């Protein structure tokens, strides 16, 4: 019974395909998008200026089917802006894009968080990109006052997340 209900839900809310993600990105009218990696990956590159005096941040979002999307601020260098301080809520950047990789949502964490805040049914346009804007608001506030006031969950080195 439970299985079939899950299946029904799955049918009603299928994962978005790479081309559907791509289409949503293109119609948002923001930045540039392309599909690469034999149709398995969609990449979005755009500029975010979250508040009236914010910098213009060049941001790359890359999403490969079956993996978590990554979001990297490529310009300006957040490391330089942080002036030696370690920036909260980031990942060690293992992508091919140079810059700072943001951590924008709570993923599945074994024994801690059962449901990831992002899943393949959600469009990047409505999640990752707005979250990146919001992250940048709190980043500039962090630069100004030295305190992260955007909330979030502290990383525990024991966490096993995906």
């Amino acid at each position, binding site marked *: 019974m439970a299985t079939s209900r899950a299946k029904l839900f799955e049918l009603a809310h299928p994962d978005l395909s790479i081309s559907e993600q791509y289409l949503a990105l293109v119609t*948002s*009218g*923001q930045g540039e998008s392309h599909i690469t990696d034999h149709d398995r990956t969609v990449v979005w590159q*755009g*500029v*975010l*200026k*979250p*508040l*009236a*005096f*914010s*910098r*213009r941040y060049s941001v790359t979002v890359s999403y490969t089917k079956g993996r978590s999307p990554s979001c990297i601020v490529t310009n300006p260098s957040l490391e330089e*802006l942080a002036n030696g301080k*370690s*920036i*909260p*809520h*980031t*990942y*060690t950047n293992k992508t091919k894009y140079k810059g700072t990789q*943001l*951590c*924008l*949502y*709570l*993923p599945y964490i074994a024994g801690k968080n059962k449901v990831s*805040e992002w899943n393949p049914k*959600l469009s990047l*346009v*409505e*999640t990752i*990109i*707005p*979250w*990146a*804007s*919001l*992250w*940048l*608001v*709190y980043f*500039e*506030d962090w*630069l*100004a*006052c030295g305190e992260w*006031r*955007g*909330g*979030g*969950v502290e*990383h525990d080195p024991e966490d096993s*997340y995906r």
Partner: protein
Amino acid sequence: MGLRFHDARKLETSQKRLVMEVLDLALEQLDLSASDLEKIESAYRGVGNYLASCEHPLLRDSLIYPQGSVRMRTSVKPLSKEEFDVDLILFLPHASGASRDDINDVVWRHLKAHKIYGPLTEKLARGFRINYKGNYHLDITPAKEYPFEDLPGQPLLVVDKRFEFKESNPEGAAQGFDDACRIMPKILKRMTFTESLEANTVQDLPDQSDKKPLNRITQVIKRHRDVWASNEDNHFGDFKPISVLLTTLARLAYLRVVNSGKVFESEFDLLLDVVELMPMFIEQANDEYRVENPSMRQENYAEKWNRKEKMEGAKLQQAFVQWHKAAVFDFEMIAQSSEKGMDTMFKTLSTAFGERPVSSARDRILESISNSRDKGRLGVVATTGAITAAASAKASSKPAIANSTSTKTAPVIPIKKNRFYGDQ
């Protein structure tokens, strides 16, 4: 002629509104609170009642009333180390025949005889100071009737160290200032950034009428002067322009631009116009500087600029020029931070207006963003990533107010709940 704004004029409307909002929130911190005002009022009333009750013919029916910024609601709390200045007139209706020394002597003796005021009272060039150290001081200027002309307000002869008596009409000036405040500029009214986040619907405009633009602009100017003068490497700090002079120039400049019928894109544009035009209203005739009290021509607020001894006048006049240059420069610097981050904008504003009130404005704005986020009412403009109010589906079918560089038709994407994470 004169210094002009360039970069500040070129800011986008959303940027101008944001700067003005930060200034507004910062100056709110420096306003006298209702309880401050009450305390001050009861303090000077106490002195007034005491003097009026003294059995001396010169003090009979005497009346104490505020002049200057307390009266005009343009007070700005001083930098932490200084005391707050409350300027008062002590009007003596039965002193028309009395000399300055008679008046000073009587007031001094009676204040000194008082158990509480006595030890706190000091002499000033124009009257006396009752100094509640570390808090505020009451500067009391004794005055008698000005018998030569009927003028608006209350024309007076006030005691003066150099001239025996000087013409003064602070009440006339204050009434004129109030009148100017009531002439409202035409500003394309939009909600401020935080208002747009907090309002339930686009129609919900909170009433902002308690503080008029001219009061606020005057406070901004005075606060800038205070911070500028306190700067350690400022050689002109000791000669800083006096408040009544700045207030009068601001009022005249304000009236000029507002009465021209100009429609302002934002209050910030009005502020720029006022700052830019202020020097124009300094008159110079026969080698003499004049900034007259519009309610009493004889009262020249720039009188000290004409003093020759020790170059005092030249230094005062130069200090005004330097302050004005700094004000124009600082607003230009703020404008130049338009692409350099909110952190840089706040830092630049802190340099010009002081760290404490500006960080409290920053906190207020961030709080407003976070509150809207918690309520699920935050959105981004799709084309720019600008944070704005998400159109509440049930509240209004109108588009949310975009605060940004976007065109008004750009769709707003509501921001879904999220928690930031990370591995470092």
